[in-house]
């Protein structure tokens, strides 16, 4: 049973560029959340998607946007990249009868 899969695993972008990160949730899960983890810090909540709608959002600017598809997979888009956006981006999924979030291995984004 595949867990949460994220792609790509690593990415290097230049300031001002745009990036799209992808996530496939664990089988049976319908809710996808995105987190940003800076080096040496705990993950910070970006937003959550359920039934293709953004259900809640953390303290991140509008440059961060997302989407959920009918098959529950999700994308995270970041526009106008800043050096400070360099981080590990984690996708987490959950389903009915919540039993904790399952995290993917993340996408490490480096902005130069």
């Amino acid at each position, binding site marked *: 049973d595949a867990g*949460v899969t994220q792609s790509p695993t690593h990415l290097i972008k230049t300031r001002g560029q745009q990036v799209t990160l992808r996530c496939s949730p664990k089988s049976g899960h319908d*809710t996808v*959340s995105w*987190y940003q983890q800076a080096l*040496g*810090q*705990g*993950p*910070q*909540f970006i937003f*959550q998607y359920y039934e293709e709608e953004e*259900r*809640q959002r*953390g303290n991140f600017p509008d440059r961060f946007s997302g989407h959920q598809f009918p098959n529950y997979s999700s994308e995270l888009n970041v526009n106008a990249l800043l050096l400070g956006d360099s981080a590990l981006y*984690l996708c*987490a999924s959950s389903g009915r009868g919540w039993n*904790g*979030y*399952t*995290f*993917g*291995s*993340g996408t*490490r984004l480096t902005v130069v």
Partner: protein
Amino acid sequence: QKEVEQDPGPLSVPEGAIVSLNCTYSNSAFQYFMWYRQYSRKGPELLMYTYSSGNKEDGRFTAQVDKSSKYISLFIRDSQPSDSATYLCAILDYGGATNKLIFGTGTLLAVQP
């Protein structure tokens, strides 16, 4: 004041030692408490979660919640080199339209053989 505070370490112990990892939190309404383990270059992996106060044991791991002092702990008995990782405490902020994890900064643990 941060919602969740965690001593970042690093913590280095010899194999076989008992490890104590701790966090404090600010909001007394929180009810669900979790511990995640994160190996280098990997995503967090749920170790244990507890609801409200009390202890929960799973093998060598014991999670403890003291709601009166807003203190959560993870104890690792007979620590092994394979336990070397970053340990993250997390609280589920749940209610209404809210359903998100609030993490501590993580404690880096190294168990020396």
